[in-house]
């Protein structure tokens, strides 16, 4: 196991450097001079501009800038945004919000998706199964901003059950509506995963054995079918959680959630190089870690999977 983890981490290193280099290069190539933009309508003072350029290492060649930046990351310094705020601080204030949002979405996905998928799988081919499949298909093909606007319009504006936009605090209650919107895609996929997994498991020999031992239908469903159908669902949810953690740009933008996705999007639009690169770096690290954990979780759930030869 340890050998496997070490090998995976070593494989992740080139991906980490490649991704950060790529994003750093793209941000570097963005048109416009952020230092000039800082002066706004006032004339540019060349002395101050030069001083600022030196402070942000903008006078260095591209690759030197990148190396200085990466060196800082390994010392826990995520750089400073052009407005003077440390990027680490921005991350610390936005990340908990996105974490709350992702947790809400994942919990909704698990409960709703597994419940509907289980019933659909047990009643394969009946009307409930067919209509849940059609519903999941519609949810998958509807773009998230459409779902966001429609639910914002109905639940917040028409019915008044929730606030249309989230306040700066972004507590759990306010995040339920955006969390539901974020969860819709996951719900649709989990319905289908659970359904086909349940159909698969229900035809296994050990299920027939359980019935022939005289166990009740409820117990067979709960202990034998549901438990053994959860492996693909759990792996999907853990990957989805990783994706949600790196932020939902569109949903956070529409509901005005002060999370990672919206902050990153605004940073890109404003050409805030250091913020963009640091956010993406953290995202990539998260992505790599979640990927590794998912593979390990897979082995823990299914004893047949072994990573050691």
């Amino acid at each position, binding site marked *: 196991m340890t050998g496997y983890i070490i090998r995976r981490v070593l*494989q992740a290193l*080139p*991906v980490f450097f*490649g*991704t950060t280099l*790529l*994003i750093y290069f*793209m*941000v570097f*190539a*963005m*048109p416009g001079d952020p230092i000039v933009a800082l002066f706004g309508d006032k004339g540019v003072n060349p002395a101050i501009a030069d001083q600022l350029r030196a402070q942000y290492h903008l006078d260095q060649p591209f690759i030197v800038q990148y190396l200085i930046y990466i060196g800082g990351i390994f010392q826990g310094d995520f750089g400073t945004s052009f407005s003077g705020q440390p990027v680490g601080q921005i991350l610390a204030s936005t990340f908990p919000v996105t974490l709350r949002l992702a947790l809400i979405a994942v919990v909704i996905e698990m409960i709703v998706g597994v419940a509907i998928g289980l019933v659909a799988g047990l009643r394969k081919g009946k009307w409930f199964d067919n209509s849940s499949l059609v519903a999941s*298909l*519609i949810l*998958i*093909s*509807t*773009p*998230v*901003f*459409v779902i966001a*606007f*429609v639910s*914002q*319009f109905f639940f917040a*504006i028409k019915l008044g059950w929730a606030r249309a936009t989230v306040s700066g605090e972004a507590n759990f209650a306010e995040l339920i509506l955006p969390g539901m919107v974020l969860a819709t895609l996951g719900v649709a996929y989990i319905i289908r995963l659970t359904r*086909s997994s349940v*159909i*698969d498991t229900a035809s296994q020999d050990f299920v027939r054995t359980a019935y022939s031992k005289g166990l009740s239908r409820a117990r067979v469903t709960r202990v034998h079918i549901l438990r053994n159908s959860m492996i693909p669902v759990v792996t999907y949810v853990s990957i989805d959680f990783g*994706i949600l953690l*790196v*932020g939902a*740009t*569109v949903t956070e*933008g*529409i509901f005005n959630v002060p999370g990672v996705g919206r902050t*990153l*999007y605004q940073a*890109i*639009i404003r*050409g805030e190089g250091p913020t*963009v690169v640091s956010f*993406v770096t953290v*995202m*990539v690290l998260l*992505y*790599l870690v979640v990927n590794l954990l998912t593979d390990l979780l897979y082995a823990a759930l299914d004893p047949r999977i072994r990573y050691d030869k």
Partner: protein
Amino acid sequence: MTNNRNEHFVANLADTAMAEIDAVRISEKPTNLYLDAWRDLRTRPMFYIAGLLILLVATVAFFPDLFTQTPPNDNCLLANSNGSPTAGHPLGFTRQGCDIYSRIVHGTSTSLSVGLIVIVLTTLLGIIFGSLAGFYGKWVDAILSRAGDIFFSIPYILAAVVIMSVFSDFRNVWVISAAIGIFAWPSTARVLRGEILRVKQLDYVMASTAIGVSRFRILLRHVMPNSIAPVIAVTTISLAAAIVAEATLSFLGVGLPTSTMSWGNDISQAQADLRTAPQVLIWPSLALSITSLAFIMMGEAIRDALDPKARAQR
């Protein structure tokens, strides 16, 4: 020792598979994966619904004038701003007083061409990277797969936002398609690589190696045709994803310029009036969702038809 022991030194003819083998009619066309899949597809209602919708979308995209005579951008009267439907304008008006129906009809070709360019790009890159990585393995696989991971680990909407900001001065259908495609191909490559890893261990590949066929020729003639099936399904579904991605980018304000007719642009401009005139936002959203639904349904039907396991589960 009885002497009839030697009588049946070969099995009784009735006990062998000879009858079945004799029953195979050589003159009959041999079935293969694609013929079976095609036969299976034609029994699926989802295939017909999706096919009709795609046909409709394609017709609208190629011949918009068949569906509306109203110009989408000219003759817009501010007096009609966010107006309700009138005769000749069945879906009402946008904020600028333009005909919503006409704008949807004329925006179709934008969405469709972005979708098509993106899948051409992702399929090309995906096939090159996926097949070489899967077939040659070892260090080729290590390098190509890590290269794919680099593009895969950045969320592709965000990556496209950055690229579109880099090219802020010349945004058009080609640039936006490239921005989406460059970060979307690793999923195609992964699917193909996985399938090739399976196919290259099959007996007929070993047989070709044994009779001295070159490695590259084995890849082209034997491995590729037998592992391309899942790519077809993935590609159809990613066409839908690309259309949605274009709309999302336009919606975020970094997509096509507002002078280009695009559903994403229309949705983006309608969001300010969501409270007072939701219909302006709903109609282009509906067009977008139905188009994406059509391609996803088609992709899923193809995938199930090509997958013997899914066929058995029906």
